[in-house]
């Protein structure tokens, strides 16, 4: 078997220090192979978001290593971390985190702007991403004026714009009704299947978890059981 894209060993995360210290993750091992769709499930407070933030290099673990594509991520400089998050990862959050006053196109192309792409390139790639999500007719609208489902599609377009290898999604359908959530799920899994983009999805939704290749069940900061959710 090829070496995994992301490999986690003995991952611990402690919040705070002294008597108020809280150990959210208590020594966790996990491998995610190329092209896999992984669901992280578990009760509220079990450490799902904490794990996702560590995997997405938004935070540093207290103990343990995260290897990305064979590189120990603790060795990366701040600049390399920024570049990795910008170009290798895409983010979808439960709250959309859109700039309400800016246009849909500006919101979608924000990662390109951060990466330093020219305006022309941003517009071209932004329109392509919006077309992929059937939102190209909304490009000039203010993000605020879209429906919830449309907003989440804008967020996915934004996550896609840099052609990432992994999309991290924290409760991507948590704010949407079942039907709209279903559409968003379809889009994400379509991307996973057709473009081989890894999905790391944090969810409470059993149906969404079931559609992933694999579920990682967290309980009190540890992997409780590693089951094939499809079973």
């Amino acid at each position, binding site marked *: 078997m090829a070496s995994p894209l992301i490999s986690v060993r003995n991952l611990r995360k402690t919040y705070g220090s002294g008597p108020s210290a809280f150990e959210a993750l208590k020594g966790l091992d996990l491998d995610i192979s190329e092209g896999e769709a992984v669901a992280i499930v578990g009760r509220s407070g079990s450490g799902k978001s904490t794990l996702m*933030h560590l995997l*997405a290099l*938004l*935070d540093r673990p207290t103990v343990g290593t995260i290897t990305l594509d064979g590189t120990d991520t603790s060795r990366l400089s*701040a*600049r390399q971390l*920024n*570049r*990795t*998050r*910008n*170009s290798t990862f895409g*983010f979808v*959050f439960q*709250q959309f*985190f859109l*700039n309400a*006053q800016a246009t849909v196109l500006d919101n979608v192309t*924000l*990662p390109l*702007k*951060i*990466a*330093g792409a*020219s305006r022309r390139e941003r517009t071209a790639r932004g329109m392509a991403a919006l077309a992929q999500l059937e939102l190209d007719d909304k490009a000039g609208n203010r993000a605020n004026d879209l429906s919830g489902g449309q907003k989440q599609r804008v967020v996915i377009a934004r996550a896609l714009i840099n052609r990432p290898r992994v999309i991290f999604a924290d409760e991507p359908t948590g704010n949407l009704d079942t039907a709209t959530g279903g559409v968003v799920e379809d889009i994400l899994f379509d991307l996973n299947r057709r473009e081989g983009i890894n999905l790391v999805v944090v969810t409470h939704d059993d149906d969404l978890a079931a559609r992933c290749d694999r579920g990682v069940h967290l309980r009190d900061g540890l992997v409780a059981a590693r089951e094939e959710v499809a079973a």
Partner: protein
Amino acid sequence: MRAVDIVGTAFRNAFRAKLRTSLTVLAIFIGAFTLSVTNGLGTGINRYIDDTVASVGVDDVMTVTKASDDEAAGDGPAEYDPDRIEADGPPGTTAVALTDDDIDTIADVAGVLEIEPVKDVAVDYVRHDGGDRYTLAVSQFVPGMEVELTAGDQVDLDADDPQLVLPEDYLEPLELGGAGDALGRTVELAVTDGTGTQVTTEATVVGVAEPGVIAMAGAIPNDALTEALYDLQSTGAPESETTRYGEASVWFDAGAGEEATQALQDRLADAGYTAVTLEEQLGTITAVIDAIVLVLNGFAVIALIAAGIGIVNTLFMAVQERTREVGLMKAMGLSNGRVFSLFSIEAVVIGLVGSALGALVAIGVGQLVGGVSGELLPDLPGLTLLAFEPVTVAAVVLGVMAIAFLAGNLPALRASRQDPISSLRYE
């Protein structure tokens, strides 16, 4: 993120909360406007003085008088000195006269290139073509000095025929017509000689002087005319009278530097004379104006500092509001340094808009005031009350931008240090 995108984003961000930003801009505007106006006032007045300097004298000439011993006027009555004569200034001001011996002594002092006693002539009246008679003051012309003229030329010092430059406001009373018409006309000047008889001589008008505040109010004769008038005036007077002068003009090498000038003044002081350069005479005026402007600027800067605190406040609110946005951008790979620039440039934008508006409006007000200042201050013709030098205006705008940048530092630092995760968790 490209620099152009950072600036563009900062610009747009600055005007996202329009009312809040506008109020901060207004505060900056008031400070910058005040600063521009006070600077403009200083520039205007000092420029006016500079412009008129040339008509007062030249900078390689100093005025020498005999030092008087009783400078402490408060120390009781001064002893009588038979050499004391009336001097320029308020009634009662006297100076010790310079005699021909003094002139020779001064001429021998090292550094004195040339000396010319100032021959005071008191003209009784001036008359043109048998018309009405008018009083006229006559001042001495120093080579190199330039009177601002409305028409004609400066007097020719070497000319043998008596010439004079007449102030503009004499044209109408003397019925000389327009400034151009007066040139070449002959006027009659009268003095009283030593025996009490009034005698007259004639002079040609070669130029018409613009009225000015520092410029001497009187007519300016050439040497030939001064000599003629002085000779007439001295006729019949005792010799002790005619060889006593209130002051003398001493030429020196202005190019030798300030120290050399000071050394010359010291040598003259040792010899018992007081020498004052033109720069010193004017220096006091400009120094007073500079001091006033400095105090006014101080108030404007206080206003600007208050406005700077407004910027700090505005930006802290903006950072607070955009916590999640900043967190998101950091999650997507925006570096701390870029976050810092985004917010500090936003502050600079606020400073730029406020100060540019302030400077523009100040210049506009200057134009308006310039239009009416002629009526408000008719005694100061040629005065532009508010004058703006591009360098000063640019300095004000840049200075305000620097204050704004400093004010933006604190909020920008806070934004750049925000932890992306807690920002994303922020409700």
